């Protein structure tokens, strides 16, 4: 009988277990729907009965005392505007009892999550109580409370292990992401900033703004989005492949038997990644600034003059990081400097496990080093690091540091339409949404862009993994 309950898995199984338990359970199982501790009390498990009753009381108290203050206002996100009123009784100007749209949104969402969890516990409880009934009917040993507790260090140890980390992820990742998705459907921005102002639901207006020209106030969001997305993709493509190939070449070079002191060289390259990026990138930014040392050197060797003569620049300096085109190329080049040693480390780790017999037979067959690289090393690398390549691509799409630290305060856009949308030609989607939230408090558009980032990342990952699974050559390397 018990097998019927445990055999099914997944969400469907959970619901069907619940149905079975409810249909076949005795009166105490059914009473458990109302009084969560009933089933345990019937089986004389008073500690557990008390615990479940307390949980039930907690949920009820939470609902009545906390959730009910916010959830009823969820539909409007508040109607009472904050105002200062003169209170006759205290003879002072005081704030009225205003609604805070953000708190309503946040706490309503929080209540939904708590209720969702409570519903799961409630259903699970019925199933557990029914299982208890089956055990009792079969005359088998029913665990005491102490034994139940002990099982959390044994076969249920995973629950003990995962409880706190999962709570952290729920509160600091899942709820925020849900919150952000909700904000994308509101008009939460600088003009609608709680607590002094209310914001409200606007449906899909923000998405419409992003994909069309929009009204005069928001002119340019669609225009800027296409350009920023385009650069984001181009940047990720270049950043990923230049560092990947560079890393492999560097690691082959370092691991070549003819190179002396390979450890020394490797450490020297690693120093460049070990220096925190906010130091190295900020330094680079000043190194290549308009009046910086790189420009002085270029002027001294006549490069600046030469470029001006052929019409490549119109300024007295080379705008390494301050003009479109120049900045794009420089960012990719500087990223090579940062990324190649890192990829070199990973490639070294993978190459150590290169199938030696294949290399050996290639050598006996008289393959030259290039052929070995092309037909053995590279396919093996691609096989092992393929998934990492996809994650690297997604990481580069969200590579905030390189873009922000290199171009913030240095690069200002001259394109008025981009400027209207608070975007710059060198912005990635993430830096754009960072600027929108931190400097312009345009949370609604930042949320919409955030959702778009996720969609793009998810599509790329899925397509790439699908492609890789189809071209599965797993057996070849086993």
């Amino acid at each position, binding site marked *: 009988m018990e097998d019927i309950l445990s055999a099914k898995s997944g969400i469907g199984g959970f619901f069907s277990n619940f149905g079975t338990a409810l249909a076949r359970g005795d009166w105490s199982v059914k009473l458990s729907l109302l009084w969560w501790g009933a089933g345990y009390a019937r089986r004389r498990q008073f500690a557990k009965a008390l615990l479940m009753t307390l949980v039930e009381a907690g949920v009820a108290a939470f609902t009545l005392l906390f959730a009910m203050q916010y959830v009823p206002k969820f539909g409007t996100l508040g109607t009472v505007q904050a105002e200062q009123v003169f209170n006759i009784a205290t003879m002072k100007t005081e704030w009225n009892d205003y609604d805070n749209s953000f708190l309503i949104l946040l706490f309503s969402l929080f209540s939904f999550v708590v209720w969702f969890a409570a519903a799961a516990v409630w259903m699970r409880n019925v199933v557990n109580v029914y299982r208890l009934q089956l055990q009792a009917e079969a005359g088998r040993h029913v665990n005491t409370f102490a034994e139940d507790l002990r099982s959390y260090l044994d076969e249920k140890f995973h629950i003990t292990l995962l409880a706190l980390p999962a709570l952290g992820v729920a509160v600091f990742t899942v709820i925020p992401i849900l919150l952000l998705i909700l904000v994308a459907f509101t008009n939460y921005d600088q003009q609608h900033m709680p607590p002094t102002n209310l914001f409200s639901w606007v449906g899909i207006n923000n998405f419409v703004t992003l994909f069309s020209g929009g009204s005069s106030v928001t002119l340019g969001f669609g225009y800027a989005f296409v350009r920023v997305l385009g650069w984001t993709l181009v940047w990720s493509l270049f950043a990923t492949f230049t560092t990947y190939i560079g890393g492999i070449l560097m690691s082959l070079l370092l691991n070549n038997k003819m190179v002396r002191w390979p450890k020394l060289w490797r450490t020297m390259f690693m120093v460049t990644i070990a220096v925190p990026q906010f130091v190295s990138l900020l330094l680079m930014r000043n190194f290549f600034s308009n009046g910086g040392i790189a420009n002085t050197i270029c002027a001294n060797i006549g490069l600046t003059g030469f470029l001006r003569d052929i019409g490549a620049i119109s300024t007295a300096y080379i705008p390494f990081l301050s003009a479109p085109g120049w900045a794009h190329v420089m960012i990719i080049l500087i990223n090579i*400097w940062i990324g190649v040693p890192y990829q070199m480390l990973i490639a070294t780790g993978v190459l150590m496990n290169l199938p030696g017999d294949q290399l050996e037979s290639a050598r006996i067959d008289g393959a030259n080093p290039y052929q070995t690289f092309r037909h053995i090393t590279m396919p093996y690398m691609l096989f092992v690091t393929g998934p990492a390549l996809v994650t690297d691509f997604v990481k580069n799409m969200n590579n905030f540091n390189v873009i922000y630290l290199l171009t913030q305060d240095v690069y200002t856009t001259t394109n008025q339409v981009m400027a209207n949308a608070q975007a710059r030609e060198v912005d990635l989607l993430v830096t754009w949404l960072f600027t929108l939230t931190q400097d312009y408090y345009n949370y609604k558009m930042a949320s919409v862009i955030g959702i778009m980032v996720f969609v793009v990342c998810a599509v790329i990952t899925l397509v790439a993994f699908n492609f890789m699974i189809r071209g599965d050559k797993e057996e070849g390397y086993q």
Partner: protein
Amino acid sequence: MSGKKIARKVLFNVLIAALAIFWLIPIVWLVCTSFSAYSGMNTSTFFPAQWSAEHYLKLLQSDTVNQFTTWFWNTFKIACVTCLVSTFFVLMVAYAMSVMRFKMRKPLMNFAVILNLFPGMLAMIAVYFTLKTFNLTNSHIGLIMVYSASSGLGYLIAKGFFDTVPRSLCEAARLDGCNEALTFVNVVLPMSKPIIVYTVISSFLTPWMDFVYSKMILNAGISENYTVAVGLYRMLDRSLINTYFTQFCCGGVLVSIPISILYIIMQKFYVEGITSGAVKG
């Protein structure tokens, strides 16, 4: 050895030396500039015109803008707490996902993959509103929570390592009467030194290397709450750069030395961890 071979050997070594020099130019510039006697940015020559260590002394004496010692101490405190929490979280999740078998294991792992697709920054923006509502922005507690609360999601490398611990050892421990918790603490953990060291160092380094979260959380606060990253970034404000550029370089050198050492140690264990995983599949 033939002449051709010697020529190639020389060529290889010259090539790698050239690359290494190229890669070290910015670092050399950082160190040289930090010993400059001039306080602003030196734009005319690569090496400073006059050498002096006075800016290191200035950096260690706080003034209105520069409070490097306080920032350093702040970052250190944040790093210690983050390291403690993250290490526990990562190892716990990794063990549960690697060694234990339970119904929700696969769904949870898939869920983690999906969550990791959301850029971390995205969740942080919402976390930022929330922390702001509870007045936890511009505080170290908020920043520690940001660094460590979701750290359980980064369990994959540690899981890869635990996967290589022979199952037979765990089974032997169980036959000897160990429960799952004792197996974890007494059998698996003592065998996992490389991955523990890797996890400890990498989570300790997170607050030191991070820029964006600390800027987000501490940006509007007062200078004495800053971490090194935010503080040094502030020194390069357009109005301050001419007075503080050399001190920025000194700060960069001082913070980079311990981090580089830890980083290089960590990488050794990292390569050990992933390669042992690859060998045993």
